[in-house]
């Protein structure tokens, strides 16, 4: 392959696109983690009210909230899966652009871009 030069505008387009994709993915991941934590807490609360008061029915309101959160989690996981398909190529290109730019002596230009 012949030696190509790097068009800096293109380099930053690729890096910014990867950055956006990476932020989107990590945003979805954070939402999923937060929801999992909430679901876990709700489940513990519901279980405690059942076992702690000898078979007392769980608060219907809490059950509804739990179901809602679980549904929300399923939707988010589906978004994560779709996002993974659509966004990973951009992130992968960003990673490779950083490596390539470093090899071409442009480490300073790509400093701070980590995916």
């Amino acid at each position: 392959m012949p030696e190509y030069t790097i068009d800096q505008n293109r380099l930053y387009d690729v890096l910014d696109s990867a950055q956006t994709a990476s932020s989107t993915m990590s945003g979805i991941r954070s939402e999923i983690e937060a929801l999992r934590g909430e679901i876990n807490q709700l489940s513990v609360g519901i279980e405690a009210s059942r076992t702690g008061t000898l078979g007392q029915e769980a608060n219907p309101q809490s059950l509804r909230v739990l179901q809602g959160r679980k549904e929300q989690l399923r939707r988010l996981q589906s978004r994560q899966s779709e996002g993974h398909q659509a966004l990973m190529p951009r992130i992968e290109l960003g990673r490779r652009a950083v490596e390539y730019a470093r090899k071409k002596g442009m480490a300073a230009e790509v400093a701070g871009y980590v995916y």
Partner: protein
Amino acid sequence: MSTKSAVAKLDKTRSAILAAQEALASLPDRPLPHDEAIARAHDLVDSQARDFQGAYRASAFVQPRITEAARNFLNVATVTSQGPQGAALTAGLLAWLHGDAIKAKLKAEIEAMELADALPLTQREPERQRLQAQIEALEIEEERLLRELEAAGEQVERRADASIEIILAPDAELSGEPMEKAA
């Protein structure tokens, strides 16, 4: 070029890239042609027959006294239990004794094989270079089409394994115009 025809051309180019990449990946597994495979098989038999050193072993019989080597000449077949060296000796005896028959049999077996995508050893490196050049040309074409679509306001994702060198190259370098080197 209209957006529609650029998209159609992009699909076609990407299919061609995939086909060329597959051809490149399968290159090491392509079989040798009949004549080259037969020559290789015959060389092996001849080499084992040579390694047996039949003439040297036969010379034991012209000594006035019967030597140990002469007495054991036909015992080589029984030494296979002595490991790889014994097995090589037996193979050598077989090749020395029946080399032509073994070669004829191997030739017939190889000729009966269907080797549709066979490629001689000497053509592998040129073929590898040809495929790589083809992939590069196709990737340049793909990138040009993507840039054309982007200029028309269309958003098309690049492939994760597309050549980063080409993606980041200035337009002029992809169109074959004289390059203006980056500072």
